[in-house]
């Protein structure tokens, strides 16, 4: 078990592409950190640098108190779970799980004990003598997990381990992985582009965009006070409503002229107003919401439409009576966030 420190880590690929701009953060002992961001933002690159599968162009990486920039992957005391499982196709499940231990000169009796223990933990007992090709996707993913946990490493690395599974299995495995990590207390870095996984599993989330860290924070911080329009629109399903507005004389006005909140004076011009769909109150208020589509989701409903000519979504409980057409809505000032329209940064 260990903490991990990234100090100005940067990655430039051979073709000159800067996949990760200098970034620094620290992962505490036992923490579950999720790296999230859109495809191609450099999540895997960052994770692979930590694993030692990719050279670090610049910066310092420490696991525990040890600087590991030039240490081989096998000697970093890490274990990794890959997106497409990466099991050894010619070895049985038992051999797959025990392979890392065998190469570390663990006595056979101890390997057998640890493999059985891991298999029991992951419900793999019945499959120990099968080859990976004889397993389902979910079972393969469990074997990959088993391979990681028997090693008892200082750090777990996951690169989108659930993205090849169907939705139901993914939910189940998500909970299992999280529970397992709690129980073992191993520091973990988990890469995903699925914001639901990020929200539900993380102790802290790092949001990456174009090789740059947009925000680091707990799921609740990331969700409720996003640092930028990027984070606001990336996290949450449906994402935060972002509406163009005007700020002048200390008041924020929608394009239709409705004043929605007071804002610090000394600033004027276009701003972007953000509010989560579930924070909007429907039925009374100064603003008008033109409902075009009602999406029935069982436990709740999503209302899609426009506010001041811009797309807008409202989340209502299933009891709320709604109909198509204009409705008054209230935008509670406390739930609103203001962003600079040009830079996307929070004001």
């Amino acid at each position: 078990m260990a903490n991990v420190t990234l100090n100005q880590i940067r990655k430039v690929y051979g073709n000159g592409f800067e996949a990760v701009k200098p970034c620094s953060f620290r992962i505490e002992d036992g923490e579950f950190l999720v790296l999230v961001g859109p495809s191609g933002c450099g999540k895997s690159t960052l994770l692979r640098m930590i694993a030692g599968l990719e050279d670090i162009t610049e910066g310092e990486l420490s696991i525990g108190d040890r600087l590991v920039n030039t240490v081989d992957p096998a000697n970093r005391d890490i274990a990794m779970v890959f997106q497409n499982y990466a099991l050894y196709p010619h070895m049985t499940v038992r051999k797959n799980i025990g392979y890392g231990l065998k190469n570390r000169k663990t006595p056979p009796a101890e390997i057998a004990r640890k493999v059985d223990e891991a298999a029991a933990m992951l419900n793999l007992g019945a499959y120990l003598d099968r080859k990976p090709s004889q397993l389902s996707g979910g079972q393969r993913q469990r074997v990959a997990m088993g391979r990681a946990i028997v090693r008892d490493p200082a750090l777990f690395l996951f690169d989108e381990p659930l993205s090849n599974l169907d939705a139901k299995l993914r939910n189940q495995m998500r909970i299992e992985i999280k529970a397992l990590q709690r129980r073992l207390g191993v520091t973990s870095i988990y890469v995903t582009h699925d914001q639901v996984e990020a929200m539900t599993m993380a102790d802290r989330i790092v949001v990456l965009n174009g090789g740059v860290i947009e925000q680091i924070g707990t799921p609740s911080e990331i969700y409720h006070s996003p640092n930028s329009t990027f984070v606001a629109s990336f996290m949450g399903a449906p994402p935060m409503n972002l509406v163009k507005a005007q700020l002048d004389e200390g008041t924020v006005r929608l394009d239709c002229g409705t004043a929605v909140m007071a804002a610090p004076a000394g600033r004027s011009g276009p701003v972007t107003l953000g509010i989560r769909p579930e924070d909007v109150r429907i039925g009374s208020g100064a603003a008008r919401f033109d409902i075009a589509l009602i999406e029935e989701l069982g436990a709740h409903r999503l209302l899609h439409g426009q506010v001041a000519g811009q797309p807008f979504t409202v989340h209502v409980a299933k009891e709320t009576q709604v109909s198509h057409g204009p409705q008054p809505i209230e935008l509670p000032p406390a739930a609103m966030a203001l962003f600079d329209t040009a830079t996307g940064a929070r004001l």
Partner: protein
Amino acid sequence: MKRAAFDNRWLPILLLLPQLSIICLFFYWPAWQALRSSFFLQDPFGFGETFVGWANYTRLWTSSEYLKNAGFTAIFSLSVTGLSLAIALLLAVKADTVLRGAKTYRTLLMWVYAVAPPMAGFIALILFNQRWGPMTDFFAMFGWDLQVRLDYFDTGFVMVVASVWKQIPVNFIFFLSGLQSIPRAVREAALIDNASGFSRFWTVTFPLLAPTGFFLLIINITYSLFDTFGLIDTILRNNPGDNPVTLVYQVYLDGFRGQDIGGSSAQSVVLMVLVLALTIMQFRLVERRIHYT
């Protein structure tokens, strides 16, 4: 695959006819002829033949020349197969680390394969020329006075070297594509699980190359037995003397030079049985599927 149905019963046969006639003309008929001739003793001047039963075969097992050449063929095949596989694997593993993805180099490396066997023999003759061959000079530095076509061992050695040289590119290409088809994540998982590159190779890479390896093994044995004919003929300049020859070459010598049609046919039947055995082995291996998918 889609099953097509023909209305006319004769159409499929008609379509198969060219292929069938070629197979019959160039394979079944000569094979049948060889099988038949191997039980007869032919008059050298073409005046009839006498049935002799197994005599042509028993003659083989008692001929010291045949046994000697059979011994040479075994050693030759094993050396050519073993060396060309081993060297090609070594080169492929080395190339794989630098070539990931660079397909143009692969094509360049393939070129030696395009050299025709007699040409390979000719190049070997130049390299190992008694008076000015660079390879002769090279071995002379170690005090080895190479005498191609004069010394039995030296000639055999040059045959092996030339055959290996010619076969390496094919094996190399197959091994390289075999290596490159190992999923990157599997290698990376091994990189995390095992610090020793040597042990990683033998426990992960090599077993995953096994299907390619078995396939190449059969191909290489067949090559060393049969396809080296042109190369050997060029090295011997059509004049074997006391030099080593492979069994295939001996078939040619006894049949076309010695006019011993019966004996030569018996020899080719023995070789046919050998090929048959190799083919069955290959099919069995394919059937047992040494693939891990």
